[in-house]
């Protein structure tokens, strides 16, 4: 699924990444605690989170995540957008709640990807 489709499915606003909409995402994870994201070594291309601070972008960068989808209408701060631009990580925001956002993306074909528990 391309970032463009994630934007469409989540009815999201794009805060950074209009030139990244063609980037393909093949896996996703959802978490508000960043150590939960850091607990899996495998590729996760999309991070869905209700957390809204610069460490979300840092965490995404450490994990080579290509797109951050904020939920519950969170608006990224200037710090976050600056860092996202520097790291070329798309950052979008949807008014949907986490559960609904995950459900809609899963239903549209974006699976969890390979994870080890």
């Amino acid at each position: 699924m391309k970032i463009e489709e994630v934007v469409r499915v989540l009815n999201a606003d794009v805060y950074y990444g209009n030139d990244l909409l063609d980037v393909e995402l093949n896996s996703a994870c959802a978490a508000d605690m960043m150590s939960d994201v850091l607990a899996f070594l495998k590729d996760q291309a999309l991070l869905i989170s209700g957390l809204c601070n610069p460490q979300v972008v840092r965490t995404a960068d450490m994990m080579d995540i290509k797109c951050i989808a904020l939920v519950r209408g969170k608006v990224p701060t200037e710090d976050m957008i600056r860092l996202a631009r520097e790291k070329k990580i798309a950052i979008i925001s949807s008014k949907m709640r986490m559960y609904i956002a995950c459900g809609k993306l899963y239903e549209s074909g974006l699976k969890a990807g390979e994870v080890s528990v």
Partner: protein
Amino acid sequence: MSSLHMEFDVAGNNFVSAGSASDEVKSKLKSIGIDPTIIRKVAIGMYEGEINMVIHAGGGRAIVDLYADYIDVLLKDEGPGIADIELAMQDGYSTAPEAIRDLGFGAGMGLPNMKRFTDEFNLQSEVGVGTEVRMRVYF
């Protein structure tokens, strides 16, 4: 002698800049063509450690050395120290205040994640003196 040596001061209580040293190491390792999985292991371990130093220790120092077969990360702080290391190593145990949890950390996963993704992990700490974490990732 290591083929690459990097040292960083990690500023305490600056949550915005937390992670910038790990970011710099990750970029450097990428630029010299280190395997992405190895880079991610080092990045996760160092980033969690950096966050710990910011949250708990008022900052510290991070030293990274690249050798022919492995990468060493040393994190040193002069924070309050860890009273019960065994307890601190348990998944989910945290002494971080609620305000830190609101920032997305303090879930008690930092030290376990550092150990999980590095091949060698050594933690030494003395209450009132500080903490030293040594991590090694082999190629």
